[in-house]
């Protein structure tokens, strides 16, 4: 498997529910970031968590990082229809390139 894989690949929930997406990676990292992409559009940066951090919050977003398991999770609380998008994790290791995961397609039904 490749660096940065999300699961589930697709997630469908009702408005108001929480959505949890997971990301696994293979190598040591400096930080891990989550990006959002609306269908066919650009990448919007959501949140960054450093390798020495375990949890971070931003509004309705909560990110955790477990470097021992090389995994991260993104929780969106009280989801809205407007949260419908694809969500990608991206890791930043020794070099300056970002390595993206395969993404989770989130569908939030009103």
């Amino acid at each position, binding site marked *: 498997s490749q660096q940065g894989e999300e699961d589930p690949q697709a997630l469908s929930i009702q408005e108001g529910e929480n959505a949890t997406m997971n990301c696994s990676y293979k190598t040591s990292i400096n930080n891990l970031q989550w990006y959002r992409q609306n269908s066919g559009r*650009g990448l919007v940066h959501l949140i960054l968590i450093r390798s020495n951090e375990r949890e971070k919050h931003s509004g309705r977003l909560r990110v955790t990082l477990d470097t021992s398991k090389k995994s991260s999770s993104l929780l969106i609380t009280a989801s809205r229809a407007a949260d419908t998008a694809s969500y990608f994790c*991206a890791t930043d290791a020794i070099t300056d390139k970002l390595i*993206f995961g395969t993404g989770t397609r989130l569908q939030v039904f009103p």
Partner: protein
Amino acid sequence: EPEVTQTPSHQVTQMGQEVILRCVPISNHLYFYWYRQILGQKVEFLVSFYNNEISEKSEIFDDQFSVERPDGSNFTLKIRSTKLEDSAMYFCASDGLAGGRGETQYFGPGTRLLVL
């Protein structure tokens, strides 16, 4: 809020033709990147650029690709002879101020390239 811009938003070209994708990174950023995303697949790193030279490139970035910062604001990606498999969304990103590379790369809206 400053943002990365890209032109054109869509480009259709014939196989074998040259294309130039343009990007205006965030002002004062010093590190520039190109990524691509083939439809339905993950975003892949192509190249990073700093101090007027390539700092890293991927296997995808072969001799058909080149990058340039022709002036103080633009950053371009050129594909000399396009192939069908070059069809993808191409994203430009930038980060980093004078003190060093930033942690967050800011992405443009992308250019969707279709090679026929």
